[in-house]
Structures are given as C-alpha cells and as structure tokens.
C-alpha cells in the first residue's frame, strides 16, 4: 500500500538531534524576551554569511590561476579540440569527488526535427492595444509566465500552458499544453514571436542521444539540461511542437531581440558522481548542444579559457533564431555567473565573490564578463573585476558604449559606488563611497541620469548626472523615511516608486524629477499590506503612463508580535494570508485606488491588459476586470 510505504519513508526522516536541542534551548531563552519581528530575514542573513564563507575558501587560489591562464589565451587558437578538452578534463577531474548520485528511467525523445522556412505572416493582434512584459531595456524582451499577442493569452500553470482566447467577457480557455514530460518542476518562461510560442524548461535526465541503454551508461549520462521548445500557434487550438533545442545546464536567464533568443544556462560537470570521470566520457565534462538535428560537444574555440579553470561550472550562452528555427552560436566560460544585463549590442555576465580579512570583516567584488552580440553572433570582449556587488538588472545600463552601474561594497561598513566603464570595461569615471552604512535598494537609469535609493537610517533618493562619462556627479539627494524597492519612469518628468515604510508596510510614491537639482516627492501612499511581489520581480508590476495604470499584487500577513495580548487564540484567521491585486490611477497628483481584487494563490501573479479589459493570472485561472467599471466581470 502507498500509505504504508509513505509512512515508512517519512518515519525515517526527522530533524537532527543538534537542531532539536538548539531550538529547545532557544525556547528556554525566548520565554522571557520579546522576539524580533522578522526571524525569517535573520535566518536568511545567517545563511548568506555561511554561503559567503564557503565561496571565500576558493578566492585565494583563483587569483594565482588567473595569471597562469592569461598565457594560455594566445595559444588558444592553435590548439586542437582534443588538447583543449584534455585540459578541461584535467581541471575537472581534480574536482572529482564522491557523492550520492541518483538515477531513474530514461525518457523517449519525441522531437520533430523538421525545420521550415518562415513564410510571411500577418502579425496577430496588430489592431489591438495590449500590454507587453515589463522589461529592463525597451527593445530587449524577457521571458515571462504570462504573455499575450492581443488575440490570445498564454499562461504558465506549473508544468502546463493554458491558452485563452481573449474576448472580453466571453474569454474562454481553448487549449492546455501539458509539458510535464519536458520539465522537472515549473516552466521557466516563454516568449511570443509572430505565430510562435517559445517555451523554456529545465529537465534532469539522460540526454536521448546515447545509443547504449545499459545501466552504467544511463547512470553516468544523466544531467540537467535546458530545453527550448518552439510551438507553432498559428492556430492555437492545434498548437504543435515544431522544433526542440537543448543545451547543457540548468536555466539561468534569457533575452530575446527581434527573433533572436539568447539563452544562458549553468552547467556543472558530473563531479559528484560515485563513478570517477574517465577521459573518453566527454559527455560528463563538456557542454552538449542539440541544434534540432544533431547533438554535438561545444567546439573548443567557443570555450573561453582565459580565466581560471578551477571553477567547477560553465556559464553558457547560446543564441537561436526563432524565425528560421536555427541554432546560431554558443559560447561558454568557467564560473557561476548570472546573465544580468543585455543591451541591444552586448550581454554582461556578473559573478560576485567575497574575500575575508578575518572572521567578521570581508569585502565583495564582482567580475563582469562582456560578450558582444550581433544578430546571434556572440563574441567574447572583456572580463574585469569591480568593487562591490550588483543588486539586479536595473543597477546596470549601457549608453553610447559606456557601461554605467551602481554597486554596494562591504568593508568595515558598507559603501556605495557609481562607476562608468568604457567598452573594454576600463574604469573611466566614478563617484565612490556614497552613503556609508547604507546599501542600495533600487536603481534606474534614464538617459543621462541615474536614480538610486539607499536605505538604513534615512532614505536618500540620489540623482546622478552622467552626461560626461569621465566626470559623473551627484546633483541632488532627497531624504524621506522608508525606501523604494522598485523605480519606474512615469511620463517624462515623474518617477514611480514602490517600497516599504519604516514600519514594514508597503507604500507607493511619485517623485517629480523635472528639476534634477531639486527632486520632489509629489505624494506617497501607505497600503495596508506587508509585501509585494513587485518589489523583487519587475515582471509582476505594470506601470503604463499612456493608459494611466499602475497595477501590482500585494500580500497581507501578520508578522506583528507586539499585540499578541489582544489576540483571540481560537481565531485562526489571525494568520490569514491573503493576496490582493491593486489597480491604481494617478491623476491630479494623487493615487486613486480603482480596483482591489482578492486572489487565491500566494505568489507568481501577473497582469496585462487588452483594450478595455485587464487580465490577472491567478493559480492557473484568469480573472477579468473591466477597465471602465473596475469590477471583476469573470473568472475562467
């Protein structure tokens, strides 16, 4: 019986005795003292430090290796595939250590490999007014869980994709694509291009190219890989899988410029396996690609060896043409870097590292690796280290070939810096050591100006003038309580900010930036909520100045430990944990709450509009709100 087996399995699992006694002693201590309101954030902070210590252990060795490998760059072109692969094998093999591996059944390869030339198609939804994914750079699309082309709405629901025909009140679900055989957990994201739906997934299994199905081969050939699935959705009712691309490693990030998809993944060779890697087993230490027809190892020329070889992971970036169903190019280098920022011409990877002076004092640096991208062709440009860590994609920007970025550096205190780097990543200008003891909470670059918020005691909103890259300067500083997590331009002269008050409540604010030397706060509004997804995920928020819409989800849950005396213990609703979707309009210098829709799920909400209706994605359902009456008219 399933029940008995589950009982058997779970009974074997229990918390460590050490953990138990630690908690028991804490219970003893805490009986008198009041508790800090946010244990969870404290725990997260502890974990971060533990992690940092782990990373630190490697740093010293790495620097030595950088020098050694610099010599290798020049000879790289002459060496054959084999010698490069040998080098990698050596480096990887050193890291080979024993660890429990896991294995299961293999899957059948069910791709259809017929590629077809693109025919001229009329773009769908051309006449309609609809919203697009909120992106960092205007023309560079980002993958998301909720997309529309004006006629149809595509929604990710765990491992399914629901397709709806958008017809205002008559909207209905017309098709569900079940992708569970291609994905481990949730679908990572999707794109729409003309009549094609591009889906990104990650799966851990045997790559289907191996002919030998013996137990050993199936075991050693298991790995994480990221898949690009291209569906023809000319007629969404009969959506069909047209092409499949595969690259090694789990999903990191992706961008799309016109029809070219840039997909980044992180691949770790099979070093944790009990079976030691043999030299001939290339599939265990080299990245593999599937271009729709054939599998191939990454060409040696595409692996950048100029940096350290003693990292155990590859960061991979590959480009695909969606229009022509083609794989174009691939490049990789060693490290655990994130694809942080992509402009129209360049892609930037960042990787943060920590160096400890003693037990408590440490400093952080970020390695930036730059690739130029041109219609799918990817070329390595430069790699440099700068002081401090980067918060998110909004902390970086590119203008006229200059990379501008803001970082927070940990030393004895925390310091904030603003850097301008030229096209080879050499520093040309900087403003350093801003706002001691504070850190950056949000940033936004708009043309020649940069706006960023730091927080600890006060909340300055800085405005920096970058019109002269050699001499950036801070032109103004606005101090207000609380902070903003997200900044978005609203028209030419205003900036919208979403953040928290000092007490931890969600707030929204509007700033006047028409006079750069004197930024003003126009209005701020406190919301009865504790958290908004939008503060960490810019895809969750929609700010549209033309339509005059500001829409985002918030959560209300109680972390307040102070007033527990009045709390009625039998009232379990004290713990109620409800999410709402707010739609605001901004007029006459005031925020007006137009709609407050109660939601079912706890996270991953998205919203979009088509003409006069607003669609909210909520745990596999669709809520439709009229933008005239601001009432929910239907739930599908």
């Amino acid at each position, binding site marked *: 019986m399933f029940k008995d087996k589950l009982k058997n399995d779970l009974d074997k699992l229990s918390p460590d005795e050490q953990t138990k006694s630690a908690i028991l002693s804490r219970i003893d201590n805490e009986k008198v003292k009041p508790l800090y309101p946010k244990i969870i954030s404290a725990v997260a902070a502890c974990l971060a430090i533990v992690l940092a210590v782990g990373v630190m252990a490697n740093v010293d060795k790495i620097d030595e290796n950088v020098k050694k490998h610099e010599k290798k760059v020049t000879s790289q072109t002459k060496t054959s595939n084999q010698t490069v692969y040998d080098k990698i094998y050596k480096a990887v093999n050193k890291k080979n250590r024993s660890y429990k591996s896991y294995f299961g059944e293999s899957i059948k390869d069910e791709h259809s490999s017929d590629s077809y030339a693109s025919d001229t198609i009329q773009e769908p939804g051309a006449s309609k007014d609809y919203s697009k994914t909120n992106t960092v750079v205007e023309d560079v699309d980002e993958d998301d869980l909720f997309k529309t082309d004006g006629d149809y709405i595509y929604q990710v629901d765990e491992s399914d994709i629901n397709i709806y025909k958008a017809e205002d009140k008559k909207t209905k679900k017309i098709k569900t694509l079940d992708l569970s055989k291609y994905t481990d957990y949730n679908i990572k994201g999707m794109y729409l291009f003309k009549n094609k739906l591009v889906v990104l997934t990650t799966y851990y299994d045997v790559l289907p190219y191996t002919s030998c199905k013996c137990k050993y081969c199936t075991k050693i050939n298991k790995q994480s890989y990221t898949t690009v699935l291209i569906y023809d959705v000319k007629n969404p009712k009969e959506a069909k899988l047209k092409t499949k691309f595969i690259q090694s490693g789990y999903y990191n990030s992706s961008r799309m410029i016109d029809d070219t998809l840039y997909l980044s993944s992180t691949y770790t060779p099979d070093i944790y396996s009990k079976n030691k890697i043999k030299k001939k087993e290339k599939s265990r230490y080299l990245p593999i690609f599937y271009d729709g027809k054939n599998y191939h190892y990454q060409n040696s020329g595409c692996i950048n060896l100029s940096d350290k070889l003693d990292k155990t992971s590859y960061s991979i970036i590959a480009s695909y043409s969606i229009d022509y169903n083609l794989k174009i190019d691939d490049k990789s280098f060693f490290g655990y870097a994130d694809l942080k920022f992509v402009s129209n011409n360049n892609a930037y990877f960042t990787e943060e590292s920590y160096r400890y002076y003693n037990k408590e004092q440490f400093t952080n640096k970020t390695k930036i690796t730059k690739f130029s991208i041109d219609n799918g062709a990817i070329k390595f440009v430069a790699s440099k280290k700068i002081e401090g860590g980067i918060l998110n994609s909004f902390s970086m920007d590119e203008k006229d070939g200059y990379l501008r970025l803001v970082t927070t550096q940990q030393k004895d205190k925390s310091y904030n810096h603003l850097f301008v780097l030229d096209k080879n990543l050499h520093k040309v200008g900087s403003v350093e050591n801003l706002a001691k003891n504070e850190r950056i909470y949000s940033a936004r670059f708009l043309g020649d100006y940069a706006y960023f918020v730091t927080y600890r005691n006060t909340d300055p909103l800085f405005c920096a003038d970058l019109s002269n890259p050699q001499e950036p300067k801070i032109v103004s500083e606005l101090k207000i309580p609380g902070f903003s997590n997200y900044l978005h331009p609203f028209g030419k002269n205003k900036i919208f900010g979403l953040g928290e008050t000092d007490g931890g409540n969600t707030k929204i604010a509007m700033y006047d930036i028409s006079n750069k030397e004197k930024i003003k706060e126009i209005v701020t509004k406190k919301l009865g909520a504790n958290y908004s997804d939008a503060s960490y995920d810019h895809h969750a928020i929609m700010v549209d100045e033309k339509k005059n819409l500001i829409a985002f989800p918030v959560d209300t849950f109680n972390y307040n430990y102070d007033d527990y005396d009045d709390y009625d213990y039998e009232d379990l609703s004290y713990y109620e944990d409800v999410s709402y979707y707010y739609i605001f309009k901004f007029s006459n210098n005031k925020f007006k709450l137009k709609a407050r829709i109660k939601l079912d799920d706890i*996270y991953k909400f998205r919203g979009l509009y088509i003409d006069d209706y607003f669609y909210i994605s909520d745990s596999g359902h669709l809520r439709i709100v009229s933008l005239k009456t601001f009432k929910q008219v239907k739930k599908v």
Partner: protein
Amino acid sequence: MFFFTTGTEKHYIMSSEQAFNKYSDMVWRLALSKTASRENADDILQDVFMKYVHKKPKFYDEEHLKAWLLRVTINCSNSFLRSPWEKKTQALDDSFYIEMKETSQVYYEVLKLPEKYRTAIHLHYYEGYSVDEIAKICKSTPATVKTWLFRGREILKQTLEGEDF
C-alpha cells in the same frame, strides 16, 4: 469541525518543551514535504515553536493543539516559500531530492508533485486527516482539497506504476 466541537472551554495547555518533544517531528515532516529541503524545514520548525512560546495559546483539547501547529506550519512554510531568498535559491537545491531518490520507496515521487498536491497528500495519507479537516487546516474548500488529492493521486498512479492506493 474538530476545531470547535470537542470542548466547551479552552483550558488545555501544554508547555512549550512538552509540545516540542511530542510534535517536533510532525511539524518538521510537514515543513519538509512543503519545502523539500532539510534546512528550510529546520528553520520553519524553529519559527513555529517560537510562535508557540510567544502566543502561549490555549486549546480545547490535544486535537485542537495539533491542528493549530499544522496550520501555523503551513503559514510559516508559505511565507518562507515566497520570500525572495527562497525564490532565488530554490533552483539549486536538489540535494535532498537526490538523497530521497536513493533511500525512499515512494516519497521521492511525492516530492516531485506540485507543492499544493504534496501538502494534501501528506496530510491525508501520512497524518490521516479527512478531506474536510484538510480544508480547514489549509483554509480552503473541501472541493479544492479533493481536486488536489485527486490530481496528486493521478500523477502518482502514473509515476508509481502498479502501486495500490
């Protein structure tokens, strides 16, 4: 139902230490099923009992206490799952899953299910709660819980071929 029918007055009190010794495994296992990570389950276990210490709740009876603990565990796990930290680290952490794949008979397949189905399956098959009771604990409707259980079971039937439910 079971929250309110058994007693007329709340007079049932259990000391934090006693409650911890008796129910720490139960709380930890539910947190484990929800978050699929030992480390997260440890953190949640601590959070839940910190709440217990500070709120000093009184109950109708022991069943009520158990339900309270499960409910708080679910809330803490939900808060945890949605924290930005967890969102960023989730993708990397498959070590627990790998371990389970080798050592468990059926649990590794349960871990593969979507989070909601996992909770429902855990409470129904392991803790032995009925659909109505699960609905109360999860603050949902019996119909929804039924759907979770049904869908979870359907997936398990495919992945665990020939298993008797």
